[in-house]
């Protein structure tokens, strides 16, 4: 069976600068349809309508961090098995292992290159 193409990405990120760079990287360079949420709680309300193929989560966010958002998304029927990538600042290897153990598809580190981020994501999507 052919793999489902990656088209719609939901990105949860509280930093407006990163939001702008990511929009550029994913929409204009990558050609994806992107919805950006500032808060984890906002994402929980958006997923049912937007139905993303892939969810990208920042880790350090106020109110509801990336891991809490991930766990909350797993409890929703729409996103109980949705592929999730954590996009985070450099962290310790044990934290990366923790994200993978939770069920994350992969972990990408910030800062990222806006011109190659989409390719990195496409590669992760292809090999899943």
């Amino acid at each position, binding site marked *: 069976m052919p793999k489902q193409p990656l088209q719609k990405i939901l990105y949860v990120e509280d930093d407006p*600068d990163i939001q702008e*760079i990511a929009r550029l990287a994913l929409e204009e*360079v990558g050609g994806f349809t992107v919805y950006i949420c500032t808060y984890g709680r906002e994402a929980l309300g958006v997923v049912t309508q937007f139905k993303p193929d892939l969810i990208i989560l920042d880790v*350090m966010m106020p109110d509801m961090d990336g891991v809490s958002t991930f766990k909350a998304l797993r409890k929703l029927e729409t996103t109980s098995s949705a592929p999730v990538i954590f996009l985070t*600042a450099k962290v310790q290897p044990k934290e990366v292992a923790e994200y993978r153990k939770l069920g994350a598809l992969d972990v990408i580190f910030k800062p990222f290159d806006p*011109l190659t981020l989409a390719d990195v994501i496409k590669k992760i999507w292809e090999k899943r």
Partner: protein
Amino acid sequence: MNDEKIAAVKKLQSLKNKFCAKLPARIREMERDIALLRDNAWDGEAALRLHMELHKLSGTGASFGFGKVSERAHDVEEYLSALIKSGGAPERSQKKALFTLWDRFTKSFH
């Protein structure tokens, strides 16, 4: 390079200019917070604000081509994070180490 990438590079330059224009104000805000951690003071709220701002700069700097800013911001962020986690006011030597990292960070803009 295809047309989309050329347009993206132009837009990236415009985002970079916007980022640079806002930077002095962001540094001033952080300097206000770092002043609240100097000498005998240790303002926990200021430490948290500073940590969050350093985290953001560390995450964005290199995406705009300021690799050293990202790297140095990350160094201060990591050290400050450990101080925050340990709870309470840090020792004088720990503060000194923090301010040394801070000075290296501010020099990375030049």
